């Protein structure tokens, strides 16, 4: 044994101590890792020895290595050994190592409990102290639970040194073991009045931290803290107390005043004037200062002192505090604009960034230009792209905030954007581009200017693309090309721009930009043709075509699919045009028709206002995700097999390969035996996918019937005429409307925007929806439409054109609606004034049966006579997913000056039709309408009806009870109405192909019936359009004055019509598998035409 000890101490002489290790590491800079691995081997040897001194030395070295990032977790047990040494020297090292290396998942920690407890109760206060210090770093929930009592006892230790440590560590214990808080709290509170200031400050610390987590439990301590605050001389304690009050003030407003002022004082005191603290100790000086720092404004002024200080740190904190005040008191900060602009010149980037943040809140119409000018100067000067990019985004943020609220001159803004494109290497090209697009689309008056600027940009494209590092900025060209193309009528020299867009250099741009170039070159081409064909000399136009034909092949070869596809389409088109030109045919009009229609913005929230149909889960898969190929042909098939759709919708189980193959097989068989599965027909689905407006509105995917764009329908030419007529009528109505509009403007703002339909801007009523705010009189541009387009056309310029076609159709529909209403004898003046409100049509897929219901004469109980208090419009719409459900959309419009609330909708159920009420409601209970109506506001509610048989039309009686609230009184009112479920409303427009149609007729399952209409004077296309629109049919085929039409009921009945016309007589031969449904539908058709 003795020998061992001697040997140990001899060994020790040769051991490296910490200093040797450090020196060694410093001397082995090249092969540090190797050196350290030998050291670790030595340490492992040392740890195997019994000598505690050797072990402690080894552990000490390990602690150092741990800091350098080496893993020493393998030595955890040795650390515990050293911790439990009886000698303070080693214990200290052991605890240090433990506090550095241990964490909650170190498993040896649970071995330490008893050792720590022993050390805590050691007579030597430094043993206790070192244990407490160590514990503060590695306390675990287990340790906290086991040692809470021991530590609590130490809080009343005789030595303040131990007391303060014990108090502080209690906080850690509370966090790990919250149950200990309740028994320990009284003692903790006692410590607030400990004679030793150190212990006192520790207690304040702990209570402050606790209060920050749960302030209301500590409200009772406020008086005590107030006393401490006024008596303490310790800055640290004061800061903590103020923090505590900060946490308490939301609960006790009386504290607020004192806290804000106190905190401000103490926040400044240690830095600004050391003497201020000493004065603030005496209560009298305090009250004086209370008076001084009285308001937030004053605070801001004090902050100014901070910001003006030469100390960077104070400046930064001042700005930081100011940005906090800005949120609540923007006005008070605005007066310091000069100072903040000054800070933009500061050499410290972090201060400049803070100042930039503040700028956002202090722009106004007056100073925007000035501020931006200043920022532009900084952009030029700024070194380093990060700061410059930050400036760029800030400029755009500031200008575009709250819908360009502060911009008075958009020409200026466009030039700023153009200037910004000169920035090298910015990442924010797309940001600038989207601003350009946004402004050009929404501010009509600026288009001419914008187009001119963009044309210049395109002309100088080489400046932007010349350097590969400038890649980010070339996004701007995307916007430029699109704007020039879309608004090409404003171009001064379209030929030059066209030439610029077809330069070979363009091929080096990113694919998506090239695609826009190609597409917009085509638009420009159309414009150029138009201007050139007017001339007598035809060669110019032909030369233009030749230019296109020469340049486009470059893009046809593009590796980018999009570019390639567009280019080759357009190339072929131009070739054809050239052929026509050579025959001296005028083509300009037709070419222009390709791009006819105008884009119009839609409110950003428009989509939200389209209510999600009941039972529709937008997150669920509609079809199983992997079966993409399937879903395409599945959809046409489901037209005839209703049960299939029901199942396939909400399910999104995982499908394995085998299962898939099986399904595919089953499907093939089904298809083979299904006469209605037509492989040769073009997939209707594809067509929709390309139309953005339709595609991304989920409603479409549910209502599988798609009347909007029925493939193969030769209707679009018919619509052109209708459209013309409608516009003329609109023009005639305009004067009347404008008068009304002026009156109703105020009320209309709150009105719902009716989905994508409001894109149409020809009817002035829509203008109100779109342009919800007008620019101030000082503005150069008269108005900004505050609403970006729903279809986000700028991103997909090619598809914009398509969507505008859609629009046309919709417009036609609307027009038809109006026609119909007019003819339906119902007070048509009202419909016109409420054009926007009525369009609850969702994306054109809704089958609406307009039933403007109770007129004022139907509402006997309304005492508010003169302006009719209430108006309802309803759509009845079959639910394809469930053949027995019909959704009725009702638009309620409050036409009186009073507030309508507590509306209750009730219908007297019939045997056949029943209003769906929530579970638990009785069969005669009404449904509460989920909104209230302020004056002039309309809103839509939907009610679901269950219908058993759909072969008969029927009427349901109902009542709407509501409370009319005036300033001084409120009265109950009741409105009776009738809901008319026509058989037509059970029909859903379903496209059908001629071959399928023929098979259907051949099958012989259908019963025939016919009807003759006399004295119909309208042209045949109009007649067809009318049937399509009002009765939800689609045209299958049309030959001269004869057409076949098809529709399908929600319960899957096929309805086929053969319509012929001769000498004002229309004969309709119809076939359907349900004779009574057919006769009712025919009756309804007859009625429609009898009202003409």
């Amino acid at each position, binding site marked *: 044994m003795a020998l061992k000890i001697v040997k140990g101490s001899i060994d020790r002489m040769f051991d490296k101590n*910490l*200093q040797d290790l*450090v020196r060694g590491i410093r001397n082995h800079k090249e092969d540090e890792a190797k050196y350290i691995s030998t050291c670790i081997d030595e340490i492992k040897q040392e740890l195997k020895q019994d000598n505690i001194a050797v072990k402690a030395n080894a552990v*000490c070295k390990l602690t*150092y290595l*741990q*800091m350098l*990032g080496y*893993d020493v*977790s393998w030595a955890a047990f040795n650390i515990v050994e050293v911790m439990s040494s009886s*000698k*303070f*020297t080693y214990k*200290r*090292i052991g605890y*240090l190592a433990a506090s*550095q*290396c241990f*964490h*909650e*998942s170190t498993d040896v920690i649970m071995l330490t409990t008893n050792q720590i407890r022993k050390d805590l109760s050691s007579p*030597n206060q*430094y043993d206790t*102290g*070192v244990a*407490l*210090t160590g514990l*503060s*770093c*590695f306390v675990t929930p287990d340790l906290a639970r086991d040692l809470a009592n021991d530590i609590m006892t130490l809080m009343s230790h005789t030595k303040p*040194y131990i007391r*303060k*440590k014990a108090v*502080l*560590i209690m*906080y*850690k214990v509370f966090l790990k073991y919250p149950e200990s808080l309740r028994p320990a709290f009284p003692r903790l509170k006692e410590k607030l009045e400990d004679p030793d200031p*150190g212990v006192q*400050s*520790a207690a304040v*610390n*702990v209570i402050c*931290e606790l209060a*920050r987590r749960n302030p209301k439990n500590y409200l009772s301590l406020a008086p005590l803290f107030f006393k401490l605050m006024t008596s303490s001389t*310790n*800055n*640290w304690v004061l*800061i903590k107390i103020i*923090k505590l009050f900060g946490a308490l003030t939301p609960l006790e407003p009386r504290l607020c005043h004192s806290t804000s002022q106190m905190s401000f004082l103490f926040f400044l005191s*240690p830095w600004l004037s050391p003497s201020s603290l000493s004065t603030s100790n005496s209560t009298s000086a305090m009250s004086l200062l209370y008076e001084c720092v009285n308001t937030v404004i004053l605070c801001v002024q004090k902050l100014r002192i901070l910001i003006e200080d030469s100390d*960077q*740190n104070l*400046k*930064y*904190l001042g700005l930081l505090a100011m940005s906090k005040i800005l949120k609540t008191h923007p006005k008070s900060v605005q007066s310091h604009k000069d100072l903040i602009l000054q800070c933009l010149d500061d*050499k*410290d*980037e*972090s*201060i400049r960034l803070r100042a930039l943040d503040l700028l956002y809140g202090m722009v106004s119409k007056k100073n925007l230009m000035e501020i931006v000018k200043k920022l532009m100067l900084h952009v030029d000067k700024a070194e380093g792209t990060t700061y410059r990019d930050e400036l760029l985004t800030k400029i755009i943020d500031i200008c575009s905030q709250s819908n360009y609220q502060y911009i008075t001159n958009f020409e200026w803004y466009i030039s700023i954007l153009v200037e910004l494109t000169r920035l090298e290497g910015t990442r924010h090209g797309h940001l600038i581009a989207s601003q350009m697009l946004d402004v050009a689309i929404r501010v009509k008056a600026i288009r001419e200017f914008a187009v001119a600027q963009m044309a210049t940009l395109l002309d100088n494209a080489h400046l932007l693309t010349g350097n590969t590092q400038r890649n980010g900025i070339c996004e701007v060209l995307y916007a430029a090309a699109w704007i020039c193309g879309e608004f090409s009528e404003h171009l001064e020299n379209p030929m030059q721009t066209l030439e610029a867009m077809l330069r070979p250099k363009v091929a080096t741009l990113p694919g998506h930009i090239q695609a826009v170039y190609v597409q917009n070159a085509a638009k420009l081409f159309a414009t150029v043709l138009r201007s050139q064909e007017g001339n007598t000399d035809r060669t110019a136009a032909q030369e233009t075509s030749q230019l296109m034909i020469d340049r486009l092949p470059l893009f046809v070869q593009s590796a980018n699919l999009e570019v390639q596809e567009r280019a080759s389409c357009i190339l072929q088109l131009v070739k054809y045009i050239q052929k026509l030109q050579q025959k001296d045919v005028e083509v300009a009009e037709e070419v222009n028709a390709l791009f006819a229609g105008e884009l119009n913005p839609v409110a950003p929230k428009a989509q939200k206002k389209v209510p999600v149909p009941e039972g529709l889960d937008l997150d669920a898969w509609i079809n199983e995700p992997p079966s993409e190929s399937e879903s395409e042909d599945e959809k046409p098939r489901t037209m005839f097999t209703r049960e299939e759709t029901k199942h396939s919708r909400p399910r999104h189980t995982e499908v394995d390969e085998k299962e898939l193959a099986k399904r595919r097989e089953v499907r093939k068989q089904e298809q083979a035996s299904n006469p209605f599965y037509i492989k040769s027909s073009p997939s209707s689905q594809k067509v929709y996918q390309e139309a953005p407006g339709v595609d991304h509105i989920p409603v479409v995917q549910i209502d599988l019937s798609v009347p909007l764009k029925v493939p193969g329908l030769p209707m679009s030419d018919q619509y052109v005429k209708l459209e013309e007529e409608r516009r003329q009528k609109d023009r005639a109505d305009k004067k009347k409307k404008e008068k009304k509009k002026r009156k109703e403007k105020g009320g209309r703002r709150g009105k719902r925007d009716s989905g994508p339909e409001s894109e149409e801007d020809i009817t002035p009523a829509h203008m109100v929806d779109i342009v919800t705010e007008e620019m101030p009189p000082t503005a150069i541009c008269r108005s900004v439409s505050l609403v970006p387009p729903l279809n986000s056309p700028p991103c997909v310029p090619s598809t914009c054109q398509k969507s505008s076609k859609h629009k046309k159709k919709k417009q036609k529909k609307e027009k038809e609606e109006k026609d119909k209403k007019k003819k339906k004898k119902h007070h048509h003046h009202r419909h016109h004034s409420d054009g926007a409100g009525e369009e609850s049509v969702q994306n054109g897929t809704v089958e609406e049966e307009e039933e403007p219901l109770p007129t004022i004469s139907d509402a006997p109980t309304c005492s508010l006579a003169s302006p009719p208090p209430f108006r309802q419009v309803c759509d009845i719409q079959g639910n394809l997913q469930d053949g027995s459900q019909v959704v009725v959309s009702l638009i309620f419009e409050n036409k009186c000056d009073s507030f309508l609330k507590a509306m209750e909708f009730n219908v007297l159920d019939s045997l056949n039709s029943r209003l769906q009420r929530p579970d638990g409601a009785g069969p005669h209970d009404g449904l509460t309408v989920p909104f209230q109506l302020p004056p002039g506001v309309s809103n839509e509610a939907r009610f679901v009806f269950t219908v058993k048989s759909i072969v008969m039309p029927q009427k349901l009686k109902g009542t709407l009870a509501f409370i009319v609230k005036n300033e001084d009184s409120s009265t109950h009112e009741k409105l009776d109405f009738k809901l008319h479920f026509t058989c037509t409303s059970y029909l859903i427009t379903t496209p059908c192909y001629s071959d399928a149609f023929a098979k259907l007729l051949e099958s012989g399952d259908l019963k025939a019936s016919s009807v003759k209409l006399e004295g119909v004077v309208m042209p045949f296309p109009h007649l067809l359009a009318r049937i399509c629109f009002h009765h939800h049919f689609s045209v299958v085929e049309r030959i001269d004055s004869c057409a076949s039409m098809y529709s399908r009921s929600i319960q899957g009945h096929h309805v086929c019509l053969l319509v012929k016309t001769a000498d004002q007589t229309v004969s309709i031969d119809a076939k359907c598998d349900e004779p009574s449904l057919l006769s009712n539908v025919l009756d309804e058709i007859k009625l429609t035409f009898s009202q003409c």
Partner: protein
Amino acid sequence: MRFMLLFSRQGKLRLQKWYVPLGDQEKRRLGRELVQTILGRKAKMCSFLEWRDLKVVYKRYASLYFCCAIEEQDNELITLEVIHRYVELLDKYFGSVCELDIIFNFEKAYFILDEFLLGGEAQETSKKSVLKAIEQADQLQEVRAVYLPRPLIPLISQAF
């Protein structure tokens, strides 16, 4: 306070104290990231930065950076004061402290820090009592020859 780091201008860690329990890897990762961020800042910049969800307060003394990560509600200026107080303590203890003192006597630096801060909160604001506690504890310890390479740049005289 979440943690305190001392590191050299070369980015070498000289001392680390974590008041939140984290795994070694996480500590190393955070430390490396923060050191890089701070070393990337220019000399004239202010001492505060927002980093992740924390605020970082740092100050450079001669070749050594002292850096503390504090929570959103904590006071930046008082943290600067904490850093300065710690440097003063080191200075008093070692007698014009320099970076090498901390490298070679890093356990002492820890002991002082532990007397000054506990669990991330200031434990003792009086320099005198901190030093007294350290001295007394040292007396309990066996006397060991301490190698002190002298004199390099004293930290305290070189506050940036």
